[in-house]
């Protein structure tokens, strides 16, 4: 059995080995954590870049901060079951909750100042699967990579009038989104907007075959276009009043379409729509039955993380769902830590 020598001595060699092992391990850890890579795009950097000049609205989502909750059902017609094993595609009715929102970090932004509208949606099925998605009304995404999105946020927030021009010049892929944003075809209702998933996901069918797909919600309500100026005249919170009243009168519906990519279609670039002749399947109908103020609503505490997916859907090589998941988690962690700043009503669920 080994025993200790009478006088243990710290030799230079032993000290050097111990120091090297400890320092090397600490350095590897620091590198992995990004402390040695100030240029790395981290979730905090991405989320901080969303903040308006006066700083973020504490207690709110860091983007799409203004919104209103809804509940309803997803009526699946069963046609999606050949594409994905997810229970949501089996014929049946499944409870949903969601959130209509504006693409702005300012929860008080007047409705007529925000072109991008969105919908967060959660479909839960009886077997415990949960599918969350956050979609917008634009037909394409403005940029092709999270890094370009970060640059766009900086350009859009810059005081330099040339910043946006040089961004657009350097990012020709921005043109499709830019054309949509400037087309002037506003509506005066959340119910008249389409909501497009934009990101490509992989659908896994019952035999295990995988296909790239995107989904969209197409409104049953016909779109009545109005000018931006007219919408502004109707008041800063017109959309929330309008959707509350409209749903009170009748449930509002959207058809969910799944579009399947052909082999070779780019799946990693949400700035590019796939050609119009791609196979499109109507898989069901979203029925919005009840509107709830956000402060009291079931959507308030939900992070509509686009990587929360049921078996039968997984992320593709599209880089955005991962980046959004990382940023949404950061936003969620911040706003839950700041929940005392969020104006709750007495009926609100406890924090």
């Amino acid at each position, binding site marked *: *059995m*080994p*025993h*200790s*020598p009478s006088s*243990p*001595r*710290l*030799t230079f*060699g*032993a000290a050097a*080995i*111990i120091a090297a*092992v*400890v320092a090397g*391990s*600490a350095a*590897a*850890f620091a590198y*992995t*954590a*990004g402390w040695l890579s100030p240029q*790395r*795009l*981290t*979730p905090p950097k*991405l989320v901080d870049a969303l903040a308006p000049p006066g700083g973020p609205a504490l207690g709110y989502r860091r983007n799409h901060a203004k919104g209103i909750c809804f509940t309803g059902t997803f009526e699946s017609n069963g046609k999606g079951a050949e594409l994905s094993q997810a229970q949501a595609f089996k014929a049946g009715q499944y409870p949903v909750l969601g959130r209509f929102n504006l693409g702005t970090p300012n929860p008080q932004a007047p409705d007529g100042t925000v072109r991008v509208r969105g919908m967060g949606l959660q479909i839960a099925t009886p077997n*415990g699967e*949960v599918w969350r998605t956050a979609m917008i009304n634009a037909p394409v995404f403005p940029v092709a990579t*999270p890094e370009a999105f970060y640059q766009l946020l900086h350009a859009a927030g810059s005081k330099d009038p040339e910043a946006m021009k040089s961004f657009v010049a350097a990012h020709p892929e921005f043109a499709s989104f830019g054309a949509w944003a400037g087309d002037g075809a506003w509506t005066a209702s959340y119910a008249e907007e389409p909501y497009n998933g934009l990101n490509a996901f992989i659908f896994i069918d019952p035999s295990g075959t995988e296909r790239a797909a995107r989904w969209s919600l197409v409104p049953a309500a016909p779109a009545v276009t109005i000018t931006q100026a007219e919408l502004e005249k109707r008041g800063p919170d017109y959309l929330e009043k309008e959707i509350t009243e409209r749903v009170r009168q009748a449930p509002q519906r959207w058809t969910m379409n799944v579009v399947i990519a052909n082999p070779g279609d780019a799946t990693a670039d949400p700035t590019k729509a796939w050609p119009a002749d791609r196979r499109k399947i109507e898989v069901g109908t979203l029925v919005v039955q009840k509107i709830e103020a956000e402060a009291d609503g079931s959507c308030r*505490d*939900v*992070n509509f*993380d686009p*990587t*929360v997916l049921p*078996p039968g859907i997984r*992320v593709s*090589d599209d*880089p955005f*769902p*991962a*980046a959004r*998941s*990382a*940023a949404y988690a950061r936003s*969620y*962690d911040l706003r*839950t*830590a700041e*929940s005392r700043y969020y104006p709750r009503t007495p009926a609100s669920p*406890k*924090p």
Partner: protein
Amino acid sequence: MTSPGPRFTALQRLLHWLMAICIISMLFIGVGMVSTVMPKYVPLITTHKTLGMAILVLALLRLGVRFYSGAPALPADLPEPMKLAARLSHYLFYALMIAMPLLGWAMLSTADYPIVLLGGVRLPAILPRSDTLHTLFWAAHFYLAFAFFALILVHIAAALFHLLVRRDGVFEAMAPLNPTTPRD
């Protein structure tokens, strides 16, 4: 709790080195995933959750084995402060190995995230949604991770000190392979 032998049992040594790999991987995955927005974020998160559950199971098993098999006695001539540090560090390791997965699980539960592991295994929530608790568990999980890594560095330094300087058999007690014939 003290076994008569000079070494930990083979099962204890296996658990130690297996968990060493798991826990060090876990800490690197953790700091890596929260500092990236790249596509690897998604598989890293899933791996982190899965590995966390594996570590929880292994830690509980190891705690049971430790109660059953005990630990070799520390060298009699080890200074008292070092003996105290050795014992204290073991308590800290067990506490962190068990608490960290539970804190992570609680942090996800209180945020109402579905908890899905590799292979689609779903875990139930262990607590209801709560902003206050989520914030508390998030902070505890985050800061204790750095404390855990610091503890591991101290542990490695101490192990090497026993191996290279004191040469007192403490390192050999947990060495993965049978040591060569003991020195005189």
